[in-house]
C-alpha cells in the first residue's frame, strides 16, 4: 500500500557523517588539569587530542567569550600570532604535551558533544564537535575528559553594563597569560580566596588595587591571604557594596559605594565567585548536581566522561559559595534601579525581567502590563527558559554567560526559595557563538543531500485539501515529491 517499502529516505537513518578522526582520548581544556590528564593518557600509550579555545579571536573576546573581559583587553589581543605565543610561553606543560605525542590544537573550541541515548540514536558514534578560526569538524572518542575550568560569575549593579566592569578570571587571564590588560587601577568586588589572590596578582603585575569591597563584615577568604593583602596596604571596604559605576565614553572612571565613598578606578573586578564551566556537560544532556561548597552546579556521574580541575567543582574549603553569592545578589539587587540592565546583549532591565515584559519593539497593551513574575509564579515555579523566551534575557549572542546566574538567583529570590528551587536555564550547542560559515558542513554527504527535505517528506501532507481523494492528488504528490532533495 505504501510507496516507500519500509524505508523513509528523509529520515536521519545513517546520514550523519562519521567523525573525521578518532582518538582514544579527547581532552577539552589545556590548563594544568587538562594537561595532566592528557599526559597521563599519552603515557599509557593512548592517542590523545588536546584542544583549548584560547587564544580566542579578538572579536569573540569582545563578546566576553569565554570570560567576562569587560572590554579591558589591549589591542595586543587582536594579534593572533602574538596571542598564540603568549599562551605557549605561559604554559610550559604544553611543550611537554607535544613532545609526548599529544595532538595539541589551540584556538580550537569544543562547541558540542553528541552521544547516542534517549531521544537520539542516529549518530554513527559519540562525537565532539570542534571549530577553529577556519572551519568546524567532528572527532570520535573513547574517553572524553573535560577540563574546561570555571568562568566569572557576574551580578549586575547600576553602571555595570559599560566597559571596565570585568571578571576576576578574565583579569587573571589578561594579566598572567596574555599580558594584555588595559586598566591601571582596579576595585575588586568580593573577598573570598579568589578575590584575594586576584588583588595580589594585580599588584604583582603593577596594577594599582584601590581596594576590595565586601558585603559581609569581614574578609571571607583564607586568613593568611587576607593578611598578605592587608600587608600590601590594600584597604577592605567592609559591609559595603558598589552602588554605581560612573564613567564616560571609555567606560568606568569612578565607583560610588553604598557607604558614600567614591573611588577613582578604571576597572571594577567582579570576584564574587566562579562558576564551574559545565556548558558541554549540560548541552550533551549529562547529569549535574548542585553543590554550594564547590561553586554551584557541577557535573554528576556521567559514563564515559571525566571532569577534572575547576569544571568538576571548586576545591571544597567548607565555604558555601552559593549562600555567599545569594547574599551579594540580594544586596546588589537592593542597590539596583528599575532601569538597571540585567541582560546586556538584549538590554533587558531589572523591571522588565521582574515584570516579564517583552522587549521595547513590541507593544505592551494593558493585559500585558498587568502580568509579572508574581502572576507567573502563581502558575508554578518559575522556569528560567520560559522567562527568557518572554523577556529575552539570556537570548543574546553571549547566551547568558553574563546574566544566566544572576537571573537564576533573581528568580529564586522572587519565588522565595533557595537557589536550587528554580531549574537551571538550559545550555545548548553550540556552547560558543560560531559563525554560520565556520559551523557549516561544507562537505555534506550525498546521502544527506539526497535525503534533505524542508519538512518530513510526506507527499500526502501537502496536497491541497480539495484535491485529496481526487485524480489530481497523485499529480500533486509526484510533483511535490520530485522537488525534494532540495
Amino acid at each position, binding site marked *: 500500500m505504501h510507496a516507500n*517499502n519500509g524505508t523513509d529516505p528523509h*529520515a*536521519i*537513518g*545513517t*546520514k550523519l*557523517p562519521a567523525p573525521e578522526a578518532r582518538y582514544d582520548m579527547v581532552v577539552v581544556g589545556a590548563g594544568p588539569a587538562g594537561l595532566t590528564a592528557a599526559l597521563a593518557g599519552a603515557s599509557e600509550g593512548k592517542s590523545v587530542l588536546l584542544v583549548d579555545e584560547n587564544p580566542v579571536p579578538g572579536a569573540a573576546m569582545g563578546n566576553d567569550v569565554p570570560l567576562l573581559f569587560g572590554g579591558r583587553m589591549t589591542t595586543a589581543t587582536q594579534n593572533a600570532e602574538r596571542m598564540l605565543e603568549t599562551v605557549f610561553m605561559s604554559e610550559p606543560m604544553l611543550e611537554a604535551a607535544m613532545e609526548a605525542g599529544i595532538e595539541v590544537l589551540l584556538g580550537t573550541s569544543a562547541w*558540542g558533544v*553528541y552521544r547516542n*541515548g*534517549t*531521544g*537520539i*540514536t*542516529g*549518530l554513527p558514534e559519540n*562525537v565532539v*564537535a570542534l571549530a577553529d578560526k577556519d572551519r568546524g569538524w567532528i572527532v570520535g572518542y573513547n574517553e572524553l575528559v573535560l577540563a574546561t575550568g570555571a568562568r566569572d560569575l557576574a551580578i549586575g549593579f547600576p553602571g555595570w553594563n559599560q566597559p571596565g566592569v570585568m571578571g576576576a578570571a578574565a583579569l587573571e587571564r589578561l594579566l598572567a597569560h596574555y599580558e594584555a590588560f588595559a586598566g591601571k587601577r582596579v576595585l575588586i568586588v568580593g573577598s573570598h580566596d579568589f578575590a584575594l589572590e586576584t588583588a595580589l596578582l594585580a599588584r604583582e603585575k603593577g596594577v594599582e588595587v584601590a581596594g576590595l569591597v565586601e558585603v559581609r563584615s569581614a574578609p571571607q577568604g583564607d586568613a593568611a591571604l587576607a593578611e598578605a593583602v592587608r600587608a600590601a596596604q590594600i584597604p577592605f571596604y567592609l559591609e559595603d557594596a558598589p552602588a554605581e559605576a560612573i564613567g564616560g565614553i571609555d567606560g568606568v572612571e569612578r565607583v560610588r559605594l553604598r557607604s558614600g565613598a567614591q573611588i577613582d578606578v578604571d576597572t571594577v573586578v567582579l570576584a564574587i565567585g566562579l562558576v564551574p564551566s559545565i556548558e558541554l556537560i549540560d548541552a550533551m*544532556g549529562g547529569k549535574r548536581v548542585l553543590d554550594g561548597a564547590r561553586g554551584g552546579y557541577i557535573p554528576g556521574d556521567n559514563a564515559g566522561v571525566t571532569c577534572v580541575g575547576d569544571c568538576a567543582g571548586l576545591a571544597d574549603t567548607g565555604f558555601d559559595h552559593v549562600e555567599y553569592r545569594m547574599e551579594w545578589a540580594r544586596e546588589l539587587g537592593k542597590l539596583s534601579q528599575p532601569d538597571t540592565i540585567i541582560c546586556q546583549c538584549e538590554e533587558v532591565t531589572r523591571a522588565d525581567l521582574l515584570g516579564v515584559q517583552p522587549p521595547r*519593539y*513590541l*507593544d505592551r*497593551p494593558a*493585559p500585558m502590563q498587568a*502580568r509579572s513574575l508574581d502572576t507567573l509564579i502563581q*502558575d*508554578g515555579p518559575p*522556569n528560567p527558559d*520560559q522567562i527568557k*523566551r518572554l523577556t529575552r534575557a539570556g537570548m543574546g549572542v553571549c547566551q547568558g554567560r553574563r546574566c544566566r546566574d544572576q537571573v537564576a538567583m533573581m528568580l529564586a529570590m522572587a519565588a522565595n526559595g533557595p537557589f536550587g528551587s528554580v531549574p537551571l536555564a538550559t545550555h*545548548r*550547542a*553550540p556552547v560558543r557563538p*560560531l*559563525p*554560520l*560559515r565556520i*559551523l*557549516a*558542513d*561544507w562537505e*555534506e554527504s550525498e546521502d544527506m543531500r539526497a535525503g*534533505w*527535505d*524542508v*519538512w*518530513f517528506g*510526506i507527499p*500526502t*501532507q501537502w496536497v*491541497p*485539501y*480539495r484535491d*485529496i*481523494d481526487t485524480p489530481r492528488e497523485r499529480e*500533486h504528490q509526484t*510533483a*511535490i515529491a520530485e*522537488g525534494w532533495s*532540495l
Partner: protein
Amino acid sequence: MTYVGMPTPSETPHETMAKIAGTAARMKVVIVGGGVSGLSAGWWLARSGAEVTVLDKGIVGWEASGRNGGGASHYQSPLFEEEQRMWPHMDALLGYPTEHQQERLVIAVSPKQLNQYHYLAKMNNDMGYRVDLLDGDQVRAMVPLAGDNCLGGMHYRFGGHANPQRSVQAYAWTLQDLGGRIVQHSPVTGFETEGGKVVAVHATSGRYECDAVVVAAGPQIQGLMAKLGVEVPLAAARAEMIVTEPAPMMPIGGVDGNGLYGRQTLRGNLAYGGGPHEWLETFEAGPPARPSSPLTRNLARRVAELFPKAAHLNVIRSWAGIVENTPDGRPIIDRMKDPENVTVVTMSGVGFGLSPASGHAVRDLVVDGQCSFTDIKKLSLSRFDGIGADWREQRGWQPARTEIAA
C-alpha cells in the same frame, strides 16, 4: 488590517467572537495538553462561555508549540482561510503580543528548487491565493541578505509567521483573563467514563469533572486515547532548528527556501530548520530529552547558502522539538463516537500556524458537533480504520537504531 492575496472574508473575527459569546455557557471542558492546539481550543471555548481547565504535564508550550518555526501559511489545509483571517487580528483579540507578521518569500539557490517553487506558485494561484514569481534581481532587491547565487523565488501575498513562544503564552494568559484555569505540572493519568461519556479526567493534581474533553496532548494522544479504547495511529519524530545572532532587519522577515523553513525574528535573529528527522519511540510521560544532533552543521550550511551576506553571523543556539505524524501526515480533528464527548486534535507539522483556526474547529465540534466554517471530514480519524498494525514499518517510520539507555 490588510488581508492580501486572499478572498475577502464574510465576517471579521470580532464579529465571530460576538456571535459565539454565551453559546457554551456553563459547559465544563477539560483540555488535556497546553500546547497551541489545546490552548487555542480553550480560548475559543472560553470566548463561548465555557468553563475551561487546561491540564499540562509540564509548562505551557514546552513541547512542539514552543519550539517550532512559527510559519503560518498552510494553503493545503481546509483551515487555511480561517488561519489567514484570524492571524492579523490575534494581537488585538488576545491582548498580548504574538509578533505576527504577514507575507512570505521563498527563494531558490538551485534550478531544482526554482522548478519546485514555480509548481507551488501555480498550485496556489489555481486556488485563488496570490503568489508572484520573482527573478534573482527582484529577490535581491527585497531580501538584502540574499546573494548572487539566488536564482529567483516566489512571493506569497498571504501567510506569515509569529513568535511561537510569545503566542503560546498569549493564548494561556488570555484564557486565564477569561476565567479559564491552567494547571501546570499535572500530567493526565486517566479518564472516568459513564454512559458513553467521560465524566471526569484524572491528573496527578486531582480529579476534574467535565461535560466535554479535548485531547490535545501531541504525541501522547495515542497513549491517552488508548485508555479510552480508541486507536490513534501516530509516530513521533525529532525536528531541529538553529538560530543566529541578530542580522539587519529585512523588509519581509518571512524568507526561507533552500530546503529550509523559518524566519527572521522581530529582533533580527535568523531562525531556521529543515532536513532529516529522526523517528522516535513515544514516552508516555513525555520525552526525557530533546537533544540536537550534528545536523546543526548542515542547517548552518543551508542558511549560509540562503543568505550569503549573513554567513559571518554567529549561530548562538540549536534546539529540537518532538512532533507527531499521522500515517498521511495530515491532522486529525475529530469528535469521537464513543466516548461521544471527546474531541481529538493532532496537527502534525502545521499546528502552530493553524492554531487560531484549529481552535475554532475544535470549539465547533465540542459545542455544535460539527465545524461551522469549513469541511474537515477528510481530517476524521475514521480514515485510518483498519490500518494495519505495521503501518510504521511499512513507511520506514521506526527509530533509526535501537534505543540506547542514556
